[in-house]
C-alpha cells in the first residue's frame, strides 16, 4: 500500500512489531520518526534498509510517559519532516503482576509505559494533526484488552484504558478529520512464555486454538497498521480490530479438532 511521503511516528520501535512497522511503512515510501529505547541499535538493520530505500529516518530515545517528551517527539516530526500523518503507538510493556502481590511501583511502571504514554502521545499528535485537519492514530493493543491474562492484571488494565482512549479520541479528534483505531493483536510466537499463567490454560498448545492452526506474526500486525493508515480505511474510526486468527472465538478454552480424513471439512 502506498504511504509515499507520509510521515509516520512509531513508538517502541525496537520490538519485533516495531521493526516490522519500520519495514512495512518504509516499503510504502513513508518517512519515519522512531522512538527506540536502544537509540536505534536494536533496529539497526531495518533502519539501514529503510534509509537505503529512500526513507528519511529520525531516531529518538525518549521516555514518552513524560508529557514534554511526547510533545518534543511530535514537534521533531513536524519541524524536520513537515508534519505528522500517522502515529503508531506500539508500547507494550508486560510484567507478571498478581492482584494480591503486585507492588505499587510495578503497577505504575506498566500503566505509565502503556496507558499514560498512549494518552500523552494522542494529545501531542492530536494537536498537531488537528491543525491540518487530517491524520491517523493506530494503537497496537492486545486481545487482553478484553480477555484476562491470568498473569498480569495491570497489563490488561492498561490495555483496557487504551481501548477507551482510542474511542474517546475517535470522537473528539474525529471532528478534525483524524481517525483513531486499535489493533487487538492475538497470539504470535513466544506468547505462551510472555503470558504464562498459573491460573489459565489459554496459551497451552495455543497454536492449536487458532482455527487455521497458524500463529500470527509481527508482519501481520504491521500490515494491519498499514491498512488502517491508508486511504482505503478512511471510514474506519474508533474500531478495535481483533487480529488473532479467531483465537478468541471459542466458547470456552478449547483446542481445535482437526478435520478427520483429509482436508475437506
Amino acid at each position: 500500500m502506498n504511504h509515499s511521503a507520509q510521515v509516520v511516528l512509531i513508538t517502541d520501535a525496537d520490538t519485533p512489531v516495531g521493526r516490522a512497522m519500520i519495514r512495512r511503512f518504509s516499503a510504502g515510501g513513508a518517512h519515519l520518526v522512531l522512538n527506540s529505547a536502544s537509540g536505534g541499535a536494536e533496529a539497526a538493520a531495518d533502519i539501514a534498509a529503510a534509509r537505503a530505500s529512500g526513507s528519511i529516518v529520525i531516531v529518538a530515545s525518549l521516555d514518552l510517559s513524560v508529557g514534554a517528551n511526547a510533545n518534543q517527539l511530535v514537534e521533531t516530526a513536524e519541524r524536520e519532516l513537515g508534519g505528522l500523518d500517522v502515529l503508531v503507538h506500539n508500547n507494550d510493556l508486560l510484567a507478571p503482576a498478581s492482584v494480591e502481590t503486585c507492588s505499587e511501583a510495578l503497577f505504575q511502571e506498566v500503566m505509565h509505559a502503556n496507558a499514560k504514554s498512549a494518552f500523552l502521545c494522542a494529545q501531542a499528535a492530536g494537536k498537531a494533526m488537528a491543525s491540518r485537519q487530517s491524520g491517523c492514530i493506530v494503537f497496537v493493543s492486545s486481545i487482553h484488552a478484553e480477555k484476562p491474562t491470568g498473569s498480569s492484571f495491570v497489563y490488561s488494565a492498561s490495555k483496557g484504558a487504551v481501548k477507551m482512549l482510542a474511542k474517546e479520541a475517535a470522537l473528539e479528534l474525529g471532528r478534525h478529520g483524524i481517525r483513531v483505531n486499535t489493533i487487538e493483536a492475538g497470539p504470535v510466537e513466544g506468547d505462551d512464555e510472555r503470558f504464562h499463567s498459573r491460573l489459565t490454560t489459554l496459551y497451552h498448545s495455543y497454536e492449536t486454538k487458532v482455527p487455521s492452526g497458524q500463529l500470527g506474526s509481527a508482519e501481520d500486525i504491521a500490515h494491519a497498521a498499514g491498512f488502517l493508515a491508508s486511504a482505503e480505511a478512511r471510514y474506519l474510526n474508533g474500531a478495535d480490530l481483533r487480529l488473532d486468527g479467531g483465537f478468541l472465538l471459542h466458547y470456552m478454552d478449547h483446542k481445535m479438532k482437526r478435520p478427520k480424513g483429509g482436508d475437506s471439512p
Partner: protein
Amino acid sequence: MSMAGKVALVTGAGTGIGQGIALEFARRGASVAVHYNRSEAGALETKRRIDEAGGDCFIVQADVARQDEIIAMVREVEQRGGGIDILVNNAAVQLNYDLFKHDEETFSRMMNTNVKGYWQCIQAVVPAMKQKGAGRIILISSVHAKRPTDFDPVYAMTKGAIRMLGRESAIELAPYGITVNMIEPGAVDVGKYERILADDPDAQKKLEERRKRQLAKFPMGRVGVPLDVARLAAFIASDESEYLTGSAIRLDGGSMLL
C-alpha cells in the same frame, strides 16, 4: 434480602451512588463502614440517616489514591466491624476535561484514585477474605467502560481499566470463594440539578422540562437513582449471587440501547 451480620465497606459513601448504597445496605441490616475523603459533611449526613433509621454504621476517612491510607482504613474497618464481608469500590474522580485540557497531573490524579485505588482496596481486603473463604467485591464502574463519554477521555480510560481489573481479579480470587463483579450505571440523578435550581423561581418548570427530555432519551422515562444501583449491589452482595463473578452489569434503564 437481609444483610444482617454482614460488614460492608463502601468507599465514597458521603455522596451520590455511594451514599445510596450505604443507606440501602444499612436498611437491610448490614453494618456499614461509610468512607469519605473530603465529603465529611456528606458522610455525617449518611450516618445521620442510617442512625435515624436504626441502622448500624461508622465513618472512616482515607485518600484512596494513597496505599498507606487504604491499608490503615481497611485495618480499622476489620477491627471495628470484626471483618469485612463486602467491599464496594465506588470512590472516583471525574473532571469533565477534554483531551487537550487534561494534563499529566489530572491524568495521574484520576488514574491513582479510580484505578490504583480500586486495586489497592481489593489487595487490602483480600487476605482476611481468603482466610474466611468468602468475600464479595463490587466495582462501581460506568457505561463509559465501553462507550466513550465525549466529555472526559481520562474518565473513560479509568473505567476501561477497571473492566479488566475486575475480570482479572475475578479469575484470580475465585478459588478463594471471593467474587468480583462490576456495575456499569448509566446516568444517575444524584440531585445536582435540584441543588442548582434551589433558588430559581422557575425551578418547577425547568424540572418538568427536563423530565420531558428524559422521556425521549430513557426508555423507562426516567434516569437512574442511587437506589437502583444499591439494589443491584445488594443482590450481588447476597448469597443468591453465588455463581456470579467477573460480570459487568449495565444498569441504565435501557438508555444505551437507543
